């Protein structure tokens, strides 16, 4: 072996070798057939660290083709450093077209958010997942949690949520809020805020979840029932923001809190930067056609 072999030229389309892709593809098909079940797969070391999206990157690399248009977001934004890094990785290794527009993308890789604009048929949303096991913080052992899923024994999860209610008056889980998929598997939606949970239900797009370090892939096919766990007397509810986005005026969207100065000045604006920019673009063109100056 010579060191020259280590150059990028020696790597395959979308980085992964074909055997690895086949292994991941087989896992993805099983995941689609068993919605919410975590399929073990022989995750590879990727050229970015574990915990930084290696699961999502492996899934994306296995599904993407030259015709695809890729969008990568982190915390809702296309411009955060890790989103930039992953987008560049695919530009370099797969030569695919990339976009920031949700509507134009065929594959969207995300960390911690679901876009505000409704997803369409034919799109695939790929989630980066740190801890795929929703029961992990209640039971650290894989041997035990596997049994619990097998027996559909989810009492522990309900007990935990109910303890929250007893102590705080409401469920204190605000992100990675557990869901039940198609009435069978309890699933971790990845650390998206629970605000995004309702978007997963009956979604037109295919949702794939990749956990690289934990070596699991799972999926929600399009038009599949995804229900956030709750209780009759304490129904699931999403957080509401009191004010609209300070930039585009959108309501009913997830907002980031920006600290403006050291005197307590702050503003709230869209976490989904593309959604916000498109709305502002529309507003500008409307005002422009009205001959107004913005």
């Amino acid at each position: 072996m010579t060191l020259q072999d280590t150059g990028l030229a020696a790597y395959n389309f979308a980085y992964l070798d074909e055997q690895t892709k086949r292994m991941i593809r087989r896992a993805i098909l099983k995941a689609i057939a068993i919605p919410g079940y975590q399929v073990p797969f022989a995750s590879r070391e990727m050229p970015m660290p574990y915990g930084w999206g290696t699961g999502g990157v492996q899934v994306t690399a296995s599904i993407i083709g030259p015709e695809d248009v890729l969008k990568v977001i982190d915390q809702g934004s296309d411009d955060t450093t890790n989103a930039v890094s992953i987008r560049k990785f695919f530009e370099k290794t797969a030569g695919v077209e990339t976009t920031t527009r949700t509507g134009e993308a065929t594959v969207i890789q995300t960390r911690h958010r679901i876009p505000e604009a409704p997803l369409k048929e034919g799109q695939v949303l790929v989630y980066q997942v740190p801890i795929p096991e929703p029961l992990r913080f209640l039971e650290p052992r894989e041997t035990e949690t596997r049994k619990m899923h097998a027996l559909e024994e989810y009492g522990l999860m309900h007990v935990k949520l109910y303890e929250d209610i007893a102590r705080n008056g409401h469920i204190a889980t605000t992100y990675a809020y557990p869901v039940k998929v198609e009435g069978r598997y309890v699933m971790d939606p990845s650390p998206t805020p629970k605000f995004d949970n309702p978007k997963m239900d009956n979604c037109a797009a295919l949702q794939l979840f990749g956990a690289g370090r934990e070596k699991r892939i799972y999926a929600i096919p399009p038009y599949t029932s995804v229900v956030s766990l709750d209780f009759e007397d304490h129904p699931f509810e999403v957080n509401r923001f009191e004010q609209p986005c300070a930039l585009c005026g959108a309501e009913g969207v997830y907002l980031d809190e920006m600290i403006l100065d050291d005197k307590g000045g702050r503003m709230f604006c869209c976490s989904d930067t593309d959604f916000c920019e498109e709305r502002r673009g529309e507003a500008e063109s409307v005002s422009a056609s009205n001959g107004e100056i913005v």
Partner: protein
Amino acid sequence: MLATGTAVDGGFSNQVLDAQIGFAALMNALSRPGTLQSPGIHVVPPSPLSAMTAIVALTLCDADTVVWLDETVNTSAVRDWLAFHTGTAITAEKELAQFAILDAVRSVADLQGFAAGSQEYPDRSTSIILQVAGFSSAQKFQLSGPGIKEVVSFAPEGLPEGFPDFWAANRALFPRGVDLIFTSKDQLAALPRTTRIDEKLGGHDVRSR
């Protein structure tokens, strides 16, 4: 019938891109049950393996997989071709197969006996690739379940008597069960274990859950 020459001919012309197209068709087929997919790839496998079956095998099989072949498909030409192009192992045990390729299904018994996975590992099940003449049967199924917005009509040809009951029994095993991939000459479709089938009777939908 196409002359196929030797075992080394007729595979993917572009290993990487053809496999991606083949996979995209399979992913769409399983996430949208009953919809017909037409991956436009040219492969020439030995008869009686259909081109579409060959695309599925080339896309998914390699030295890490175990494939079962039914009597019709289990010819030395097919075995050699699969061995050369995929490196897959062939088994005579239905239970051990990750993939099964079936051509002529006379009765539902032919579809039985494959691995359904375990309650702990329901993914350790057989994916059955079933060659059919086409998707224009007079007997139409109404499909519902994950991946289907309302209902989808699905009409694979030449299914054995009692197929809906076989499928209902398979579905009752959930999360265990087999998944079915149907291949015609130039199209493929799939039924994941989650899909419900209702037979369309006299223009009325009979749906049962």
